[in-house]
Structure formats: C-alpha cells, structure tokens
C-alpha cells in the first residue's frame, strides 16, 4: 500500500509513514454468496451460501490461530460478506481476540441498523467499492441503482461512526471518473480513498487491463488530485495499491513537484514500506479454507486450514513457492535487482507475471517504468 497523501504531505518521514502502515494482514472470504455480479472480481459463487464454507466454530478457531500468530488485521471479504449470517459474531470474536477488522463490501446491503450492529461488534473500518460515477459503477456491478445504494450504505456507516474507505479499482474504462468520484464523496464526508490496480486470475478479466500509458496517467491523476484536494482544503487520504512500480513513479513525481529534499524523504519512506509483500505480510483464505498467497492469486493454494492451522501452513518453508517468494531477490528477472527502485518494489507482482506469461519469475507486465527511469544502463538486461 502506497500512502500517497502522507508521502506528498509535509510529514513524509519514514517514521510517520511507518506508524500509519497496517501490520500483517489476512483477507478471509467469509462467504461465496453474492448479491451483485462484479465484472472484474470473480471470487463469488452465486446468490446463496457456497458449498463448504467454514462454519462459525471453524472461523473462531481460525481467528484464534491468527491472533496467536501475531496477525494484526483481518479483512472480511466475500462474495458479499454481509450475506453471512454470523458476521457480527465473527467480528465480535475477532475484536475480543485483539484483531482489527475491516469489512470489504459493495455497500448495497448496509442499512443504519446493520451499520450500528457492526459498530457494536467492534468493526474497525468499512471499505466500500465505488468504481466510477453512477452509470459506470452500475454497469460494472451489473445492477441499476448499485451506485446510489452504495452511497446510502456509506452514509449509514458514517452515521454509525465507523471509518469508511472508498475503494476504486482502476480499469481502462473508469480512470476518467476518479476526480469526480473523490470530489463527490469528499463532499459526503469520505476522507479515505484507495485506488487499486486491477489484478487478474482469469483470462477474460485481462481485457480490463490498462495499458502502460493509461496506467501512468492514472497514477499521476491520483497524485494530482491529492495535491489539488489538499490545496482546496479537503484533507483526503489517498492510497495506491496493487502495483509497486507506482512507488518509483510517486518518487519521481515528488522530485518534479516538491523538489529533491522532500523527494529524498519520500524515497526513505517508500523503502521503509518495502514493496510487494506476497507470501509475507499479506495472505488470503477463501471461503472453503484454502490459503492463498494474495487475494487475487486464487488458482493456487498452499494448503487448507481444515488440515492444519494457517500459522503452520504459513511457516512451512518446505513449500518451494513460499520459500522463493521470501528470497525473491535471487529469482526475480534481472531487470529488477538492477532497478533503482528495487527496495521500494521488490520485483512487482509475481502472480501477475505468472498469469500473463506462465512464468512466475518473468517481468511483471504492469511494470510501466522505462529502462531510463529505473536507471538501467545495459539494454540486454531489460529483455528479462
């Protein structure tokens, strides 16, 4: 996660940025049930509970294990997590165990009563997907009125005093809506916006892939709109997720717009964040208990929490993929260890390289930085 507004703000030292970073995070898809069909995210299984969902008792044992293992944040995702009947009990249980809990939702099922119940269960934050202005969002989510319902849901969460993050997943189609979405929702009191690059697992989702130029423009827009909002007195917090090539880009942006001294602090902070954390500080568990390396990397599972606890699966470095991810500098393509931004990126997304090329250690297809930008002198290295 790249905290753009903190980095481009006046207090971009590594300690401040570090203190605002969340700790080790596990995403648990509590259900496969969905009420809307999102066109880019295919983790849902349909309208009712899916086959083999972890039971309440299994979920509680999972939470105990995560807490004992030192996980800080549990993100409850779906499907649509609000369709799970025991959600409040699970949040309550996780809160008692000392975990922060974040609900990832499309927002359409959030009423004031529901939000109040989530607040009393101890929910730390709600992340609501808003992927464009009304018509675009409705099209992406396959239902007329989904945008208005998401906004009503956001208002309900705000009324219950639970912090809201709006999560905007960037595709070719919706990038032009970013500024207006931020303006509109900042007026509604939303203070935190996450701009997520699309990952993909299935071939048909690749159509949504933004090209390199479009991607650069999108990241620049996030930086510009952050400075612009701050100049206009809106203290919005902006984050970029899903592509650590952005770290190099944000650093270059800081050099251009804020000067060398501030950019040096931005660089230190980005290096302290440390780049892609797949296989390390982020993990994913699907609704059947299969453990994945990242939320988008669903086609490979390290093991299942019904066979042994998450902590045992995550500690087991006899698994060659896990071991190599933790020792990735030895394996990433040559371009990466020679890149000026390696320590703030660490080779980009291995899953994206695998999905696009069939080679886990190929170049991340979404690394849009040129050889010149990353300080590469030897063009033969770039081919890797």
């Amino acid at each position, binding site marked *: 996660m790249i905290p753009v507004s903190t980095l481009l703000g006046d207090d971009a030292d590594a300690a401040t940025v570090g203190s605002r970073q969340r700790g080790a995070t596990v995403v648990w898809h509590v259900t496969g049930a969905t009420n809307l069909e999102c066109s880019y995210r295919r983790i849902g*299984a349909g309208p009712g509970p899916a086959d083999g969902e*972890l039971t309440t008792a299994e979920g509680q044992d999972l939470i105990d294990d995560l807490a004992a293992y030192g996980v800080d944040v549990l993100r409850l995702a779906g499907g649509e997590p609000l369709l799970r009947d025991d959600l409040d009990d699970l949040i309550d249980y996780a809160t008692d165990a000392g975990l922060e809990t974040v609900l990832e939702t499309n927002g359409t099922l959030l009423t004031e009563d529901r939000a109040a119940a989530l607040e009393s269960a101890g929910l730390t934050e709600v992340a609501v997907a808003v992927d464009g202005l009304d018509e675009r969002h409705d099209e992406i989510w396959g239902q007329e009125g989904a945008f208005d319902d998401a906004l009503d849901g956001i208002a309900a969460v705000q009324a219950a005093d639970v912090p809201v993050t709006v999560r905007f997943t960037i595709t070719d189609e919706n990038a032009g809506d970013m500024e207006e979405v931020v303006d509109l929702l900042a007026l509604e009191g939303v203070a935190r916006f996450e701009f997520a690059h699309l990952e993909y697992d299935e071939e048909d989702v690749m159509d949504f892939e933004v090209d390199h130029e479009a991607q650069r423009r999108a990241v620049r827009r996030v930086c510009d709109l952050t400075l612009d909002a701050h100049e206009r007195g809106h203290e919005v917090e902006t984050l970029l997720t899903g592509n650590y090539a952005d770290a190099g880009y944000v650093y270059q942006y800081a050099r251009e717009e804020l000067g060398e001294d501030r950019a040096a602090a931005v660089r230190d902070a980005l290096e302290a964040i440390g780049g892609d954390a797949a296989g390390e500080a982020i993990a994913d568990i699907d609704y059947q208990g299969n453990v994945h390396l990242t939320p988008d990397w669903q086609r490979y599972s390290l093991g299942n929490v*019904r066979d042994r606890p998450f902590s045992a699966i995550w500690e087991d470095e006899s698994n060659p993929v896990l071991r190599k991810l933790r020792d990735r500098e030895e394996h990433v393509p040559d371009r990466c260890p020679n890149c000026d931004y390696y320590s703030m990126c660490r080779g980009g997304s291995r899953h994206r390289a695998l999905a696009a090329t069939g080679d886990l250690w190929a170049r991340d297809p979404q690394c849009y930085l040129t050889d010149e930008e990353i300080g590469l002198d030897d063009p033969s290295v770039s081919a890797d």
Partner: protein
Amino acid sequence: MTDDANTFEEGDQPRGRASREWEVFVRADIDGPLTHVGSVTAEERDGAREQAGALFEDPVAIWLCPDEAVFRYTDDAHTPGESA
C-alpha cells in the same frame, strides 16, 4: 498414526470453487521424498499439470490427485471447529 489415544476426524468438505481442485505433490530430487505442495484449480488434468509445472520448476516428479479422490483423516485435536 498408530497412537490409539488419537481420534481422527474425516474431512469431506468440498474444496474446488469455480472448478476442480487438484492436490499437487512434487519430488525435488530422485532420492528425496514426495512432498505435498498445495493445490491448483483447473477444470482438466492438463490445465492442472500446466499450472503445477509453472509453479514448481524442475522437479523430478509431479503427481496430481483430484481433490475429491482424497480421503483425509486428521487428529481432531488439530481439526478446526472441534475445540468449541
């Protein structure tokens, strides 16, 4: 598995979501053990083999087993949901 004090829970919950799940075993060296290294999701055996081949470079053997053909018996002290 010979300790009579242990009881074993049979796990039969489904694991494939959008399509079938295949348990993957690899042998890294000819004199080493065959090791379970997780599972891949694929409709057909060929797709599962392709995925396993991309994830695990150069093993001397890859074994694939459809998830539904595996009967799992785990000591219930380590089975989630049994302690509640």
